[in-house]
């Protein structure tokens, strides 16, 4: 009996104290800044400027493993101030009413952003995504295994590579590749063209060793000589050629595919100004230099180029504007387009 009462008394005191603390803190800030991000990007070297500006501000990260997961989290009511989507997902977020347009005049580092990438972050003329990193999907080729170097996406279908091609398990990349080979505009296809793309992708199956989902696996398959042509990212070239394997990251004559990722502000955010300061820190030259040298990705800030490992510049053709010009960047898909593409891709995978 005695125990129970003292426990209650303690609880009452504790809750009063807790309430005081909450009130005191609430006066100072609106709680921690919540960032929904890919793992690894929480390194303080990326947001050092923010730390300097707001030394006492707490930042909390929640990590996701792929785009659908991030979208599903926000859609289910998960609270975040910032999210890190790809440009092709942008319209789906905007249509669902999850994002707030960003006033770029509030970002000191905005002027350094490459204009074509900035454009990839717009929906209906409004800037929703502040680009941070970008890169390619292209063919990594085992130069010692192929008789002549492939120079087109269509070479993936060449019977002489039977069983030695691997492609990323991604509806977007493969539909864009097949549409390019067939000469269609992937983003404006009618039903007949969709059916032709599906048929074309089914015809690729005899040539495929697999659909890769884990990029360390495809690196290993290329290094082992199982895969001669792999649709993959530039960092695969860095890794595999670093092991002394003869590989080249080619540019198909139709152009490489390109992706852009960056930070977007949620409509739900209660810390909008803080969130913009965080973005501003992320797009600083120092932050992006660090990113480019850690992952061999392209940086959205043009000034970073001077600080990047020359090997990476060569892999990304960062010094060749015409290559970037030819690159087909993934465009924002609407929700119904996205569903149709993934269903098409699932049917390709299910086909005998």
């Amino acid at each position, binding site marked *: 009996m005695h125990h129970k009462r003292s426990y209650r008394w303690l609880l009452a005191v504790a809750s009063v104290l807790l309430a005081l603390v909450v009130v005191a803190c609430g006066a100072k800030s609106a709680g921690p800044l919540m960032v929904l991000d890919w793992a690894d990007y929480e390194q303080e070297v990326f947001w050092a400027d923010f730390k300097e500006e707001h030394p006492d501000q707490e930042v909390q990260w929640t990590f996701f493993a792929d785009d659908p997961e991030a979208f599903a989290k926000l859609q289910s009511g998960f609270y975040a101030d910032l999210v890190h989507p790809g440009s092709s997902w942008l319209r789906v977020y905007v249509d669902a009413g999850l994002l707030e347009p960003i006033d770029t005049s509030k970002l000191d580092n905005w002027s350094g952003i490459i204009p074509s990438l900035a454009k990839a972050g717009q929906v209906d003329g409004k800037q929703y995504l502040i680009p941070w990193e970008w890169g390619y999907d292209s063919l990594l080729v085992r130069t010692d295994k192929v008789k002549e170097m492939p120079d087109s996406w269509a070479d993936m279908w060449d019977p002489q590579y039977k069983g030695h091609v691997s492609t990323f398990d991604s509806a977007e990349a493969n539909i864009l590749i097949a549409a390019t080979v067939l000469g269609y505009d992937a983003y404006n296809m009618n039903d007949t063209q969709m059916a032709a793309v599906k048929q074309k992708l089914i015809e690729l199956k005899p040539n*495929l060793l*697999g659909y890769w989902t884990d990029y360390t696996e495809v690196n290993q398959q290329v290094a082992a*000589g199982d895969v001669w042509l792999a649709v993959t990212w530039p960092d695969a070239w860095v890794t595999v050629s670093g092991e002394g394997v003869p590989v080249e990251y080619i540019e198909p004559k139709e152009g490489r595919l390109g992706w852009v990722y960056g930070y977007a502000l949620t409509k739900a955010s209660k810390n909008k100004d803080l969130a913009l300061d965080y973005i501003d820190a992320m797009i600083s030259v120092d932050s992006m230099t660090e990113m480019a040298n850690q992952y061999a990705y392209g940086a959205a800030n043009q000034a970073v180029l001077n600080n990047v490992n020359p090997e990476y510049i060569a892999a990304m053709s960062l010094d060749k504007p015409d290559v970037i010009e030819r690159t087909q960047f993934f465009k924002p898909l609407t929700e119904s387009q996205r569903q149709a593409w993934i*269903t098409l891709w699932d049917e390709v995978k299910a086909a005998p």
Partner: protein
Amino acid sequence: MIPPALLLLFFFVLPMLVMGSFSFRAGSFGAERQIWTLDNYRDFLASTSFQRLLLKSILVALRTSLYCVVLAYPAAYYLVFRAGAKRSTLLTLILAPAWTSFLLRILSWKMILSSEGLLSSLLLSLGLIEEGRPILLYSMNAVIVALIYSWLPFVALPIFAALQRIDKSLLEAAADLGCPPWKAFLRVTLPLSLPGVAAGFFFIFIPTLGEWVTPALVGGVDGVMYGNIIQSQFVSALNWPMGSLMSLVMLLLMLIILGALSRFAYLLPLEEAK
């Protein structure tokens, strides 16, 4: 403490109802989730490739379970009737692989079978093949082999238990009455062990039908299973309604097959317990 019925209600019936209701919804989120529709059913019925894949996956699961039973039976038989004092040691050995992570075991198999793996290098150095290549990997057969490998211990156990329960005096009686051992096996041992065989068979069939990890790891293009598409619909497409419908169809077919099989053999293991 908790009545079993309540447990079933919360962890089985309710989730099933949620899944069932999702199969009639127009979308996974927001306003679309509130719209009721039969579109998913129409789309599924129209997709012959999904249906064919389901059929293929059922056949793969049936084959895997059958091979498992055929491989496990002699081992369990040996353990019960021949192993004598070594029985528990041998049983532990059969179960030992299951103590390591399933993923680790599959990855080690890939290290053995890939083109720079153990087997390929061995054949290469013996001059039996001209260049290193993946052996068996990246095919439906690879999926079946990997599934058999990982499930074998689990089918051996119920057969072992069933064989152990057999009253040895029955076999002595058969011998006394002049029945040759092979006939005693067919007429006494085998029928009495069938409940264990059936339990083992179903124990493999149920999880392998929905399998998606093994196909993703060793299946390549040819080894895609129905479970991979369900996973893709939930995780990549975020099309929970279609994913739910596909799961429901699989569940229904599974119930029908299990019902038919258990009736066919009069083997429902539960009846034996009465």
